[in-house]
């Protein structure tokens, strides 16, 4: 039985790349969907708010793994067979949309109402008020929790391994199945995840600190 070689390590690095690809896909699509959820959650029309709240409650109250099973195995039963990457990306997108939508709703609503009143008194439309006045202020507040959530998404891509998608977790399983060195193999996988997540966590904390100071540098 051979030991852990450079070939294995390169295999893990390649899988790490797929983890990143999946994260970017999920987070990118999830951000778009999350923006729509945020708009719906802050809509003026009551039923739009109600429907979007039900959506958020359902997704937040369901394990991501179940969503993934539904998309990957469930849709296959009704004849829609998605590639593992796509199924995982869609599941994660749904998961992201609910959580990001809620995070961002909170940030948008934390901007004082008087700001939109002032903007609307100047004749700006609701959309212009949102884009020019509310979002720039909400984004400052939203950045730390959003980056923090990105870390969660990155780690949760490991669930895609159950759909057979060869990302970092799946790749380490494959190697371990032939080498039977779980401490070594999964230890390296863990280190690789950590190497991706730790800078993001630090970034999130740094942004939070900057925000808490809350002061712009004097111009």
């Amino acid at each position, binding site marked *: 039985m051979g030991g852990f070689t450079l070939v294995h390590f390169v295999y893990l690095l390649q899988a790490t790349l797929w983890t990143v690809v999946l994260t970017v896909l999920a987070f990118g699509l999830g951000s778009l969907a999350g923006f729509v959820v945020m708009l719906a959650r802050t809509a003026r029309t009551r039923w739009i708010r109600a429907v979007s709240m039900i959506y958020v409650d359902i997704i937040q109250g369901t394990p991501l793994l179940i969503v993934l099973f539904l998309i990957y195995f469930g849709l296959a039963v009704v004849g829609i067979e998605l590639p593992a990457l796509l199924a995982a990306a869609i599941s994660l997108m749904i998961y992201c949309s609910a959580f990001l939508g809620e995070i961002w709703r909170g940030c948008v609503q934390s901007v*004082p109402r008087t700001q939109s009143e*002032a903007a609307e*008194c100047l004749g700006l439309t609701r959309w212009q008020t949102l884009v020019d006045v509310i979002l720039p202020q909400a984004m400052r507040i939203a950045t730390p929790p959003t980056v923090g959530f990105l870390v969660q998404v990155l780690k949760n891509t490991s669930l895609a391994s159950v759909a057979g998608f060869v990302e970092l977790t799946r790749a380490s399983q494959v190697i371990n199945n032939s080498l039977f060195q779980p401490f070594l193999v999964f230890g390296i996988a863990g280190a690789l995840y950590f190497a991706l997540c730790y800078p993001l966590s630090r970034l999130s904390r740094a942004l939070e600190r900057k925000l808490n100071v809350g002061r712009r540098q004097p111009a």
Partner: protein
Amino acid sequence: MSAAVSLRDVHKRFGEVEVLKGVSFDVAPGEVVAVIGRSGSGKSTALRCVNRLETIQSGEIEVHGRRVDDPQLDLRALRRDVGMVFQSYNLFPHLTVAENITLAPRRVRKTPQAEARHIAVEALARVGLSDKIDAYPEQLSGGQQQRVAIARSLAMEPKVMLFDEVTSALDPHLTGEVLKVMEALAKGGMTMLVVTHEMAFARRVADRVIFMHTGKVWETGAGEMLANPQTPELREFLANGL
């Protein structure tokens, strides 16, 4: 001559509480009207109804011939005619003074950037803050922020300006600089509806003073009315308030 602003028997409720109980008054073009009264007398609510930050239950409000209480109202057209300045300034903290002032001209009137900058320069000159054009709001004192807020509103060339207790958050020293700007505006012929606690300002600058009490117009008259109140309520208000 038709009024710039007119309220006819306006009723406004917040849930069970009736805040305006049949308020009527007119503001003529070019006139400066001060609205005074205790907190909770409905004076700020009346003001907020004029540009439909609040909707009313019954009655009529007209601004330059436009029915404000009409559900089909073109809200943005109304707000192009009516400028508003708030107690809490409400400048946009992420934008510079120039950007605060030019945002509405650029977005609403599609004024080109360079021309908008020119508008900002002129508006700031009117409030005496030309040197602050590239500052951020938080770098300014309260009085300066409020003057920028006035300039921001002026940049849209409103026909009527509403002032909602604009000096209440300021110390006496800073209050003076804001009132001076408002006085100059009044002299320039701006139609102004001013909710205020500044009795000296009401007496000196306003063409007419409206005293509101428990959701009604209680007493109205020229500035001298403050020296010679007719109702016991106004007498008491003036005695306690000054």
